[in-house]
């Protein structure tokens, strides 16, 4: 399906957020994800299904502070 990932159109295989992060090689534990403008809790990643045209923003944190 085709989603809008961080503002750009992208074809992906994943059917849910957890699978999407793994497909895109993001570490789910370090990722902040919003789906169509709403932040999704980490524990709901695998239960959150993706649909064609969804707007997904993924931000991956880097350690240090």
């Amino acid at each position, binding site marked *: 399906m085709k989603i809008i990932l961080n503002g750009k159109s992208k074809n992906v295989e994943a059917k849910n957020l957890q699978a999407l992060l793994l497909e895109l090689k993001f*570490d789910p*534990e*370090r*990722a*902040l994800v*919003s789906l169509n403008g709403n*932040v999704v*809790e*980490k524990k709901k990643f695998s239960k959150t299904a993706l649909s064609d045209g969804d707007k997904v923003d993924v*931000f*991956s*944190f*880097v*350690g*240090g*502070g």
Partner: protein
Amino acid sequence: MGISGKLFFTSNPPGVYEKLQDKSVFIAGAGGLGSNVAIALVRAGIGSMTIVDFDKVEPANLNRQQYYRDQVKMMKVDALRMNLARINPDLKIKTICEKISPENIDDIIPASAGIIFECFDRAEAKAMFSEFCLKNRKAIPLITVSGLAGLGSSDEIKIKKAGKKFWVIGDGKTEMNPENGTVSSRVALVSAIQAHIGIRILLGLEK
């Protein structure tokens, strides 16, 4: 605060001290970022702050964190309280010596605060904390950091407005590890940007 206390803030831009006196902020973590952010805010004249941290001051912290040799082994929140009180004894400070987890986060973060500063070191903690705040403390501006280790150029430090009330500062790539290390000047740079955005938000200057 009496007239004598105000004297220490007279070099601020006009009105800054008066406005910041009524404001409170929440600082999550008292390491390189948190200790520097706290000191920048107290010098600007912030009225009250809450600081959370569960660590002790270690010798290896002193290359970049706002502690002193005679404070090694103290809890960071206790040492920071002392250091902030030396700058402004009238600061209202609440310290919480706990590790923030998904179980206690809702009790620890106040329902209202002028700003929330994310000053953790681990990426997983940053993600968990930001996720919670953006979902459950939507009305409070959140300023986070991602990527400040190593010796990269100052120009690589970017300010990203990632949401209506959400800022991310850093180079976005340089992880803290023994190979990269972390130098005082770069941590100070990032934490100063963090504090400055916070001050501007509190003064109504940041859109």
